């Protein structure tokens, strides 16, 4: 009988520990367990046989750590042998008809980009290769287990889906706080895995049965899929640095009986458990009636760590990452100024956004590539879930693929063609989809027709197996000045989505007020009315005070804000800054003391009597110089230098605004990069801040930058000075190589180097033109190179 005909319909049992048993059988510290698929085949076969004989229905082949990274040479043999041996063990146990051999996939051991250096597609490839070997050797099922990172889970599941048709079961490893190592909560994991369409999910390893129960309990409340629990034999006791699991098999079995009642549909064990544990566990669990999994109704949008639930209270979706009507944002997109875009995201997070809308559609850029890059970069700095906002199907597919978590997608609509293009992508990757209530006939001017379209969208989602929980209807806020009925129609639509469809809704709230004065008044009031009518998500600018005032007031009054925490945090007197932002502080003083707000104030004030350039030359630069000298003499230290730099930046910003353009001429353009292989780039970023303050235009190539990219950019942009940083002696090699290539292809470019291991001798040895020991030294050198008098 096929596994999927039994999964979720009867008790199924997994095997227990592998590593802990192999250690007892002589696996040495540091010896790779999968090498036994070649060297100790009898033992590996016996292990599988013993588990099948003990009653395990699903037994993992010994492929947990088998991947190209750990076995560059014998991978195929190792994987194929593992499946073969497990099948032979099954045959010896006479379980050919009702036992399943699993291809076991564990973590790669590498951290994925952007925090680590393994590219997402590379991870998919690494898993894909193992899946191909395992599937063609006749594995019955793929078990992805002991996973500790949401992104790697996604890579493994996609690899399994794209390289086989086997059932996919996934179990993850939580810490005692219920988090994966890279931060994912239980909600996040469940939403991600259900979105990806796995066949069952659960927990393995981590802790003992007792400690796992609260986490499993939570999973049972969230997941509609069959649940798997494979715990360790208790908590490990460290005996001379070796983990020993010593919970008795009877205690284990009895706790697993309790576990089964939570309810859980498939059980087994992990570290410290043996065939004996599994046999007793099965006896115990079989005493309980089988609990069928039941459908749960939750709507979660997640990042790699955080899950935001839709439907429990209104959610704020920040709308500022969008070029429409924003000159500065358009410029940033054209100039590839990712940091500007990221700072827009962070500002909205600070202002209280739950989710960030990401729209980078501009005719003159490659939308798909830009969207992918912005999504990745945003996910390296914020834990907020994202709403991918585009109608470009290629961009949707690419962005949803690299997205770490279960995103929100904006949007589909009632047009058959649109749904047919987008629903298959949603089905593959999982997403909460915004569905606009319009169709081939346009936007209906009445609620009846809009609700009809909503029903049509639900029906089409059913065809694709997409849950209604994953659909959020956009009730369409239309400009009230062009149709006085439109607000009423929208509000009725929202209310009926809630009351008649029991669904979720979303609005781009501020559309309502186009063409009328003081739009914020209409927006904020309409927002409150919409929330009162059941609005689940609002796409708004969270930096607009009146909108957030309405939002916080609504939540406080509706008992959505426990203990009024959000309300009080926002409005109770915030602690006054140490020095009040008065105009009495001079710009010079503000910069010297590193007070950005005061510096901006003082600049605004100063501009009343002086022009910007005078302010810069008479106060700003002298203050920066004094701070810089203090840093060099050692009378002040790094944080003070940086705070002054930020204050100066704030002042420059004000001057720039007043002059509607560049505040001053650019002294020169410099490339900065942390060299290939090196991922520690804070030093480079500090140098960048200082150089920018002194009027240099920086092309920041980031970290782990290949020599070719630096050379090509230097040639293309005709760059006179390149600054390179490296932290470790091992990566200075790349620095040397970069210099060599620059000398060869762009000999007139000068190179200065810095970093923890650098010194003058080392710099000379690798052929750099200058060694700069810190940010100020780099400023001096850059001034010298560009002939600027200090």
């Amino acid at each position: 009988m096929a596994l999927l005909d039994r999964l979720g319909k009867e008790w199924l049992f997994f095997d227990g520990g592998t590593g802990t048993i192999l250690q007892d059988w002589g696996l040495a510290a540091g010896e790779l367990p999968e090498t036994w698929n070649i060297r100790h085949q009898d033992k590996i076969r016996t292990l599988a046989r013993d588990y099948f004989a003990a009653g395990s229905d699903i037994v993992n082949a010994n492929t947990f750590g088998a991947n190209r990274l750990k076995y560059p040479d014998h991978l195929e043999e190792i994987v194929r042998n593992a499946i073969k041996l497990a099948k032979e063990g099954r045959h010896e146990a006479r379980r050919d008809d009702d036992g399943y051999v699993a291809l076991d996939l564990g973590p790669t051991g590498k951290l994925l980009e952007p925090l680590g250096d393994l590219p997402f597609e590379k991870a998919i490839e690494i898993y894909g290769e193992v899946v191909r070997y395992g599937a063609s050797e006749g594995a019955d099922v793929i078990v992805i287990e002991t996973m500790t990172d949401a992104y790697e889970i996604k890579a493994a599941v996609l690899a399994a889906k794209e390289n086989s048709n086997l059932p996919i079961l996934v179990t993850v490893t939580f810490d005692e706080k219920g988090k994966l190592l890279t931060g994912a909560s239980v909600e996040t994991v469940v939403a991600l895995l259900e979105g990806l369409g796995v066949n069952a999910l659960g927990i393995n390893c981590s802790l003992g049965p007792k400690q796992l129960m609260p986490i499993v309990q939570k999973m049972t409340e969230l997941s509609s899929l069959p649940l798997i629990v494979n715990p360790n034999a208790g908590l490990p006791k460290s005996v001379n640095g070796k983990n020993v699991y010593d919970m008795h098999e009877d205690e284990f079995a009895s706790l697993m009986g309790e576990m089964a009642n939570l309810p859980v549909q498939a059980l087994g064990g992990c570290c410290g458990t043996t065939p004996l544990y599994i046999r007793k566990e099965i006896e115990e669990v079989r005493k309980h009636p089988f609990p069928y999994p039941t459908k749960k109704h939750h709507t979660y949008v997640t990042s790699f760590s955080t899950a935001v639930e839709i439907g429990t209270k209104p959610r704020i979706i920040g709308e500022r990452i969008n070029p429409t009507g924003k000159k500065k944002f358009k410029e940033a997109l054209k100039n590839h100024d990712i940091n500007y875009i990221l700072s827009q995201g962070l500002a909205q997070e600070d202002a209280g956004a739950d989710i960030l809308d990401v729209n980078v559609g501009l005719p003159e850029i490659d939308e798909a590539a830009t969207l992918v890059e912005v999504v990745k970069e945003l996910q390296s700095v914020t834990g907020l879930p994202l709403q991918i906002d585009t109608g470009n199907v290629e961009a949707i597919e690419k962005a949803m693929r690299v997205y770490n978590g279960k995103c929100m997608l904006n949007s589909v609509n009632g047009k058959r063609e649109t749904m047919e293009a987008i629903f298959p992508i949603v089905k593959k990757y999982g997403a909460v989809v915004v569905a606009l209530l319009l169709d081939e006939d346009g936007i209906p001017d009445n609620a009846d027709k809009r609700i009809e379209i909503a029903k049509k969208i639900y029906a089409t989602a059913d065809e694709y197996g997409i849950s209604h929980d994953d659909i959020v209807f956009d009730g369409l806020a239309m400009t009230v000045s062009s149709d006085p009925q439109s607000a009423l129609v929208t509000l009725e639509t929202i209310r009926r989505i809630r009351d008649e469809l029991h669904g979720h809704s979303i609005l781009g709230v501020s559309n309502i007020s186009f063409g009328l004065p003081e739009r914020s008044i209409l927006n904020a009031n309409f927002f409150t009315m919409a929330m009162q009518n059941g609005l689940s998500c609002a796409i708004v600018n969270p930096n607009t005070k009146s909108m957030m005032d309405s939002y916080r007031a609504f939540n406080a009054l509706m008992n959505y804000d426990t203990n009024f925490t959000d309300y009080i945090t926002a409005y109770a007197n915030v602690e006054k800054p140490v020095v009040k932002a008065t105009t009495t502080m001079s710009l010079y003083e503000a910069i010297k003391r590193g007070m950005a707000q005061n510096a901006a104030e003082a600049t605004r004030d100063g501009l009343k009597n002086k022009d910007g350039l005078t302010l810069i030359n008479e106060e700003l630069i002298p203050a920066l110089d004094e701070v810089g000298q203090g840093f060099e003499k050692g009378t002040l230290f790094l944080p003070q230098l940086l705070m002054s730099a930020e204050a100066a930046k704030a002042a420059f910003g004000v001057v720039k605004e007043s002059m509607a353009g560049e505040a001053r001429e650019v002294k020169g353009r410099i490339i900065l990069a942390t060299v290939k292989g090196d991922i520690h780039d804070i030093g480079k970023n500090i140098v960048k801040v200082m150089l920018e303050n002194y009027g240099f235009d920086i092309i920041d190539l980031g970290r782990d930058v290949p020599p070719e990219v630096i050379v090509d950019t230097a040639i293309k942009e005709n760059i006179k000075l390149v600054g390179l940083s490296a932290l470790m002696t091992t990566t200075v090699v790349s620095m040397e190589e970069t210099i060599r290539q620059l000398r060869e292809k762009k000999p007139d470019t000068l190179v200065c180097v810095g970093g923890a291991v650098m010194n003058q001798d080392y710099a000379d040895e690798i052929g750099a033109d200058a060694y700069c020991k810190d940010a100020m030294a780099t400023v001096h050198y850059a001034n010298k190179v560009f002939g600027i008098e200090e």
Partner: protein
Amino acid sequence: MMEVRKSEIYRYLGYSKRKKIEITPEIDHLIDECIADLKKVITPATVYKRLPLKWLDEKTIEVGGMQVASTSLAKNLQGCHEVFLFGATIGIGVDRMIKRAELSKMAKAAIYQATGAEMVECVCDELNEQLRQDVAQEGLYLKPRFSPGYGGTPLSLQRDFERILHMSAIGISLTETCLMVPSKSVTAFIGITDQKTKSVSGCAACDQQDCPSRKE
């Protein structure tokens, strides 16, 4: 985790008593804020193993299948026949915080960097103390810890540490160039000896005179 030493954070940031640096209340406040921020995101974890130590010659040791020929490591492990290998981290959250602060407030990024370094030191010290107590019951003593990369030992030893300790289980992974991610992670040898030696530890035991973090 044990109390974070603010003096150490100041030292990592380049503060020195010898210099006449005036610490403003703003900076001091900012450092407190950064400590509080990081306390919310750290997830300290350690993994260690006690293994027999084999001497191949006077400067070459073998442990868990890893061979190291290094005069300074040999000096550090002199008289030992057993060794602890350990890995410690405060988690990836700190790296995210640093990256974030680099976009919004660079001074904070620098302080997070220093605070993270001190925090992972604390995690190591705590583990070190626990191990010291463990071996003390057997009448044994510990040598000062010695990390791959010190004293000219190659960073590629990190691969052996990963193989032996399975550090990825506590979230420590290696880049192609053997750098650890999360960045605030430490691996080290700690020799076990039956001789109570007055051993020099920390910076005094290290030959790298020009190290930027060297204590005076």
